[in-house]
């Protein structure tokens, strides 16, 4: 065994005496992708039986590191020790045979099959050559009892909630004999209640002697459940600390590299007249099923109405219907006294509605256009950017320089292709475009998804600046914290309906969480659930 490495370890993690105390040690892991150093000599020490958080902003290299541990990609250099033994992990099956299991952000389940069938898939018990379903069910029940992970083995995956599907994924890894579980941002898709339940499960697993690596960027979750934290930033480890010896501010500083303001400065609202109204709106999704089911809302000038909800409950369809990208089946959208139902995106924009889209690469930007061209995406045919059908490059460039300065877009030049910018700067380009051209109303979806704390702070303050100028806004976000800190009122969406509308200062995260899971504010449950 290499002695220098042992010394290294003792310096970097003093609570560990010997290599054999560790479930996992990753030493000097370096992984380069074209143009990016995703992992730069990363050392990771995970003690046996602990819940170990890896935190960092998007692009910090957390997932890349875990993919190397799970054998999905190979490191350029570095070594991995499992239970003190150096091993080579060339594929997920190597990882599985070494007792490593991974639950990905996107579940890998077969929807029409049952829970039991999914769990045993690939390692099915057989009687002769025939799949032994009863044995599979028995195994699953035994496993589920052992780890207190309650599932019904006979229901189909497509009929159960996201939280339940996640349990199935965890059971799947346990069925394969996992001793070390990697959970990649497991809470991103869960309601607050489901998150609590997941934490219970994690505690249980820990008591049973399992080791868990928990990837997240939510610091409150780190504080709530983990024993030890490794912080990553730009491919490097920037901090190692016991959870009980730290606090969210310190972690945030290590993640971002500077002090950050986690709170925004929200002034008391000044509401004007009613600027936007939705009456009994019905919209279908791509599968032609009702995604928005009879929603009614009102928004005033200078007001931010936040839409909270778990992803996939009709928020995207609502936004697309308002902005003209999706047909309204029934109901009305009224803006500034005009009925704008089923107007074209262009007409709606001309009327004065801005749209910060939730999917910046699919809808928000043309990545092969330079920054300057992206700024004029909705105004390219208006003066001063065009003149008798010709683009006025001087006007376009002047405006681009102005917006780059005003919105602090970090770029060497306005001629850089937008695709070459980082996510945060791409989002600033969108926000600059949408906010600059004096809208009367703005639909803002997921404005800070995947951004670092610095960019989040900047964009939140821009949103509030717009509100204080008297612009009404509909804000859709999966981040409850964002909804709470920005909104003047919060509407909670569940399966295409509004469960209730509350004021952030008069409610709690728990109340909103219950509504996100389908309980109406007045206490009743959704009619067609009973």
């Amino acid at each position, binding site marked *: 065994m290499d002695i220098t490495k042992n010394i290294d370890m003792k310096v970097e993690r003093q609570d560990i005496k010997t290599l054999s105390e560790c479930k996992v040690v990753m030493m000097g892991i370096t992984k*380069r992708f*074209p143009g990016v150093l995703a992992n730069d000599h990363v050392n990771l020490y995970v003690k046996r039986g602990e819940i170990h958080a890896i935190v960092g902003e998007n692009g910090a290299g957390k997932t890349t590191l875990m993919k190397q541990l799970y054998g999905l990609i190979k490191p*350029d250099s570095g070594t991995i020790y499992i239970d003190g033994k150096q091993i080579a992990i060339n594929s997920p099956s190597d990882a599985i045979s070494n007792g490593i299991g991974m639950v990905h952000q996107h579940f890998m389940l077969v929807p029409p099959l049952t829970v039991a069938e999914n769990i045993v898939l690939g390692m099915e018990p057989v009687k002769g050559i025939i799949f032994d379903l009863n044995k599979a069910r028995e195994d699953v029940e035994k496993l589920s009892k052992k780890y207190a992970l309650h599932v019904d083995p006979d229901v189909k995956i497509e009929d159960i909630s996201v939280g339940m599907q996640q349990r199935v994924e965890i059971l799947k890894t346990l069925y394969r004999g996992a001793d070390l579980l990697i959970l990649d941002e497991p809470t991103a898709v869960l309601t607050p209640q489901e998150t609590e339940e997941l934490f219970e499960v994690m505690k249980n697993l820990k008591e049973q002697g399992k080791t868990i690596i928990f990837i997240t960027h939510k610091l409150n979750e780190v504080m709530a459940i983990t024993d030890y934290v490794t912080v990553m930033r730009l491919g490097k480890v920037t901090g190692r600390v016991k959870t009980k010896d730290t606090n969210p501010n310190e972690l945030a500083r290590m993640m971002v590299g500077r002090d950050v303001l986690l709170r925004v400065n929200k002034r008391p609202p000044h509401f004007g007249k009613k600027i936007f109204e939705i009456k009994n709106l019905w919209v279908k999704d791509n599968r032609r099923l009702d995604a928005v089911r009879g929603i009614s809302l009102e928004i005033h000038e200078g007001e931010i109405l936040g839409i909270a909800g778990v992803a996939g409950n009709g928020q995207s369809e609502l936004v697309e219907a308002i*902005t003209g*990208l999706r047909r309204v089946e029934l109901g009305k959208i009224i803006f500034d006294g005009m009925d704008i139902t089923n107007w*074209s*995106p*262009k007409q709606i*924009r*001309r009327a004065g509605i801005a*749209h910060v*889209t939730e999917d910046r690469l*699919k*809808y*928000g*930007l*043309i*990545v*092969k*256009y330079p920054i300057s*061209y992206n700024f004029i*995406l*909705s105004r*390219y*045919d208006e003066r001063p950017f*065009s003149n008798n*059908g*010709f*683009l006025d*490059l001087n006007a376009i460039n002047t405006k681009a320089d102005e917006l780059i300065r005003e919105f602090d877009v970090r770029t060497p030049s306005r001629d850089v292709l937008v695709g070459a910018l980082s996510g945060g700067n791409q989002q600033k380009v969108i926000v600059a475009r949408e906010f600059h051209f004096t809208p009367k109303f703005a639909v803002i979806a997921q404005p800070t998804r995947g951004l670092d704390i610095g960019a989040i702070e900047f964009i939140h303050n821009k949103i509030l600046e717009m509100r204080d100028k008297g612009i009404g806004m509909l804000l859709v976000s999966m981040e409850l914290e964002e909804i709470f800190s920005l909104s003047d009122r919060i509407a909670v969406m569940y399966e295409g309906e509004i469960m209730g509308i509350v004021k952030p200062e008069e409610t709690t995260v728990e109340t909103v969480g219950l509504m996100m899971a389908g309980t109406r504010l007045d206490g009743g449950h959704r009619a067609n659930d009973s």
Partner: protein
Amino acid sequence: MGDIEQMIRDIKKKIFKTAVEFFKRDTFVIPLASIILSLFIAALVILSIGKNPLVAYTALIRGSFGNVQAFITTMIKLTPLILTGLSVAFGFRAGLFNIGAEGQLTMGALAAALFGVYIVGVPAIVAIPIAILGGIAAGGAWGAIAGYLKAETGAHEVISTIMLNYVASLLANFMVNGPFQAVGTGIPKSPEITDAAKLPIMISVQASSLSIGIIISLIAAIIVYIVLQRTTVGYEIKAVGFNPYAAEYGGISIAKNVVLAMFVSGALAGLAGAVEVLGLHHRFLGTLSAGKGFDGISIALIGQNNPIGVVFAALLIAALRTGSNQMQFAGIPKHIIIIVQGLVIFFIATERLVKTMILWKERKEEVLQE
């Protein structure tokens, strides 16, 4: 001594880095490198059949640019190829794969011939523009059909333009064997167009006459360049081509631009047909297109869908075709040029592979540095 070695190593590294930057950025270098590489490989093939590649390439150059007549012949071949190349390239910029330049060229030629034959008693200044516009309109309409089908029903333009090629080809055959056949000839060709509709000739050497068609082609390339780079129409078309979702989100109509792009694409191919009839053949022939529409696909690819690039790519193909005859006289099979053409396209299509290889080398270097 170590200093000098170090210096040499530094210089080598610098050259390598510059080369890498060059390859990563420049879209012009890849086609050029592909052409040189292709000529080199073809030279090996020529060697392997016991001939001298130098002789072959000298003949090739002499045959395409060696004297005025050779030059004129190259220019005559170049004229329609620029236009079909532009046609396909314009479609590509809107994200559309127009395989129908062949049919659109036929329709443009047919329309131009009809106008050229039946418009009599007007001066050239009227007859020529009408016949040209007729060709543009017919080719454009033929392309717009595929665009409309795509916008309305989602029918893929590759399928519909292939089908429309058959329709155009069969229609052309019917016309030159029936109602539009030159009287009393029994050969599948139309009557000759009136003198007023013929494009003015710039130079004539023996039987080869170069009309102003080449000027029309070059002007078309400049106009397409300006439209794509400097106008709102170009902004819309490219936006739809790069990312239709974002275009729609920004208020650009996808349906309108798909139809428009297919119209313009078809119109350019139609113009190619019109120029062939009015400037070269002076009548409509059933076999007039002869693969020029399909050549447009290769040319657009070699020219990287850039109008200026298309002009040079078309020049390459035209020169290879013209020069190959001279090569044949020198005892080297003219099919060698098909190998060259094929290799050029192959290398450009595998541009990504080449880039990856370069990046891989670069990475290895950097790892070694560490």
